[in-house]
């Protein structure tokens, strides 16, 4: 049974530029496994080192995110369309630092003096 899987633009260079491929499988997980077997280089972009789907990689069966169905066990049939849909996220270098129960918003260039002020004098804390 072949199920249509839609490939997002940035991954098409790894699928011979195909917008979609037809793969065999009865669950979303089986399709993903088949996809990364046929196109092994996709694995590093879809999965983290621990073998789980990257947090920003969403897999939809028709209009539904498999996270809210049966995840990779979500059943599929040849009438379904499976889509790989990235969430696009990013941001600047700022990060949070937890110091003795305080959460500080800092960045690489934050001075020691500023961090000391945040800890000792900032009204936020």
């Amino acid at each position, binding site marked *: 049974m072949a199920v249509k899987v839609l490939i997002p633009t940035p991954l098409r260079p790894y699928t011979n530029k195909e917008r979609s491929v037809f793969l065999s499988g009865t669950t979303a997980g089986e399709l993903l496994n088949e996809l990364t077997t046929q196109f092994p*280089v996709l694995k590093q*972009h879809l999965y983290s080192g621990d073998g789980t789907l990257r947090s920003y990689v969403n897999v939809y069966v028709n209009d539904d995110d498999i996270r809210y169905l049966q995840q990779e066990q979500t059943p599929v049939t040849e009438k379904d369309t499976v889509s790989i849909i990235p969430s696009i996220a990013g941001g600047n*270098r700022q990060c949070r630092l937890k110091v003795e129960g305080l959460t500080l918003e800092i960045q690489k260039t934050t001075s020691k003096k500023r961090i000391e002020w945040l800890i000792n004098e900032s009204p936020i804390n």
Partner: protein
Amino acid sequence: MITIALTQLNQIKAHASATYPEECCGVLFGEEGESGKIVREILDIPNAKEENRERRFLITPEEYRRSEQEAERLGLEVLGFYHSHPDHPARPSQFDLEHAMPWWSYVIVSVKKGMPADVTSWSLDDDRREFREEKIAVDEREARRVMPGVGSGGML
């Protein structure tokens, strides 16, 4: 290399300035030619991040799906995305790297005290280890509309 019309580049800068001190984001539509990517249309997208919007942005899967549909309607590709770094350099962060996809261009606008500053573009290596900066070529001619009617309904 990524080529973008000056008018579109200015629209991205204006968007980055308008959302300051929060991050802005949007989609780059276009095509890939022999000289690299050519931006034909841009679309501003609301930053879906509910908190820390001054240092994070998010384009939801639903917005992404709409963008892909729009690209197909225009006969273009989603070439990448832009976002702003309020009061930070126009360089990708580790967070940007971890959330990036290959091939796409990630245009970053630095905004200093509300005023747009540097604009850079980056593309992720195939092995996901680092971003490579790509040259931005600014086309000073008027942006060429690909299809009549585009420009309404949210198009910048």
